[in-house]
């Protein structure tokens, strides 16, 4: 297992999530394991529909029917999250782990001023009085870098970047130890995105929380995280420190993701993208799920699913290629 530096905060082991549909069971997350250490930023990278958002929501058990967790363990600071009852989960959510979902900035209540939304969250989880909660809201705004006089604004009066900061302020309101963010910058412009991520990095240094950063954008993840896992077809296909993923990716999917990065200073010529479509979780390809799209697939890949094995210090990859060299 890829280990984080320092004390382990979140441990996900062999996680399995299944959807029970009218047409049968669909396994969307299959045997995924990773760890996030205290104060660490860990990334989960993968295509839309590949299961990464599902993993993020499964950790807090906020997946809606017809989803159910059908296997594995989730341990947070030693406690078994999957065995928790409603009360224990209530103490866990928001106070220990906060989740910023995709599109959260558009889910702010349009009829309430933003300060009310922060105050509501604080008072729903702690016995704070309104005045205390308002002070905390002002402090949070300072922390996320919004002018305190915007506390009285309605969401539609704020720009996209500011709304996302409000959402992050709400998430940090109760001082969680782990912040899970799912595509927090998708709808934002590149300058706003950069500023927001820099802000979050500063906050992490100041307040010491860990981050689980879920995204489809590998270069973006590399900016934020020190370690990451690559999710494909509901499985973890590679996990390593960010620098290793950038410089020595082993799995062909990771390599393709790195090659797809469109930046302004690297090589300019034409590149091939990743052909084909993500696998259908109802009928995944046999053997390695990536083989239909892999430029280096060979016979064994079609028959046998590769196991996650170590490729180097703190580097795991599930691919038959490396093995071939040693056999």
């Amino acid at each position, binding site marked *: 297992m890829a280990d984080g530096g320092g004390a382990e905060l979140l441990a996900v082991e062999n996680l399995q999530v299944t959807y029970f549909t*009218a047409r049968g069971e669909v396994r969307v997350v299959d045997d995924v394991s990773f760890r996030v250490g205290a104060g660490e930023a860990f990334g989960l990278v993968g295509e839309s529909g590949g299961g990464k958002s599902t993993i993020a929501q499964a950790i807090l*058990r906020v997946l809606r029917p017809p989803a*159910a967790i059908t296997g594995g363990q989730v341990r947070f600071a030693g406690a078994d999250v999957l065995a928790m009852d409603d009360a224990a989960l209530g103490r866990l959510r928001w106070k220990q782990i906060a989740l910023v979902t995709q599109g959260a900035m558009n889910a702010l209540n349009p009829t309430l001023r933003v300060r009310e939304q922060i105050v509501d969250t604080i008072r729903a989880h702690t016995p704070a009085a309104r005045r205390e909660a308002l002070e905390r809201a002002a402090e949070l705004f300072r922390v996320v870098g919004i002018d305190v006089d915007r506390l009285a604004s309605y969401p539609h009066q704020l720009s996209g970047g500011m709304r996302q900061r409000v959402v992050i302020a709400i998430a940090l309101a109760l001082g969680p130890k782990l912040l899970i963010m799912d595509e927090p910058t998708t709808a934002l412009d590149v300058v706003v995105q950069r500023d927001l991520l820099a802000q979050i990095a500063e906050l992490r240094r100041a307040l010491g929380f860990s981050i689980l950063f879920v995204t489809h954008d590998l270069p973006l993840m590399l900016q934020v995280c020190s370690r990451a896992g690559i999710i494909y077809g509901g499985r973890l296909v590679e996990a390593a420190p960010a620098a290793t993923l950038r410089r020595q990716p082993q799995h062909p999917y990771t390599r393709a993701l790195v090659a797809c990065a469109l930046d302004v200073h690297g090589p300019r010529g034409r590149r091939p993208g990743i052909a084909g479509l993500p696998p259908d979780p109802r009928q995944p390809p046999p053997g390695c799920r990536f083989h239909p799209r892999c430029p280096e697939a060979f016979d064994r890949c079609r028959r046998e699913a590769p196991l996650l094995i170590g490729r180097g210090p703190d580097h795991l990859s599930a691919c038959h290629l490396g093995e071939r060299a040693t056999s």
Partner: protein
Amino acid sequence: MSLLSPLLSNRKALCGLALLGGFAALALVGPLLVGDATDFVALPLQPPSAAHWFGTTGQGQDVFAQTVAGARGTLAVGLLVGVAVVALGALVGMVAGYFGGLVDDVLGLLVNVFLLIPGLPLAVVIAAYLPAGPVTIAAVLIVTGWAWTARVIRAAALALRRSDFVAAAVVSGETHLGVIVLEMLPNMLPLLASSFIAAVMYAIGAEVGLEFLGLGDLERVSWGTNLYWASNDVALPSGSWWTFVPTGVAIALVGFALALVNNALDEIGNPLLDPARAFLRATGRRRLRLGAPTPVLRRDHG
């Protein structure tokens, strides 16, 4: 993308459609089966008996026959008005919503004027001046009823007008008519179906109301005139409930059936909870609890 198959698999819809089908059959063949319902058949105000299932009216006519025969008159007018109101309302609403600007301002003014005019009083006044009969009633109801549908459809059209696929069709070179009929209209089918049902319900209720007031053609047999005669022949004070209850029940059943279909359309519009059944079976629960944490179901095998 049809409306038909999800409709047929919905129990409420099937129930409603079955009821409506029954009444439609009644409207089509009923009068043939019961003969002339205005015939004098027995002593007046006889309670229900084996000979006359629903008893007799204050004029000695068979109530059962009148109830059956009345279906055609009322339903025909209801259907006609429903179709006309939706057609006229959709035409005005779509044109106003699509073109916007001056066209919308002018049509909007027209719609607002008709909305302001109190419907039933106007209907009563007009019907009092025109020759009594179903045509008058239908005309009156159409004139007083189209504006509501027009306003609803206009709002939907305004929203659709701003969608990307409409802009794409415009850039493609699609004509105005093409955009309205091919791009916007198909996406408004559920709304039109719902408006149609609402219009029919309105029409039946208003028509019965007008005829009850004596503004219909009293020689015709329809549910409305049945109620008129029942009231005229002093039904309540004489305790002859059978002269108006069957007709009342019939009208209520039709309204109920229409409401069922309308509700079913609403359900279809929203995501079905059908997948939940398999989920409930797997988790061993009987119903979903809102906001419950994701359950953990471990199985022994892989």
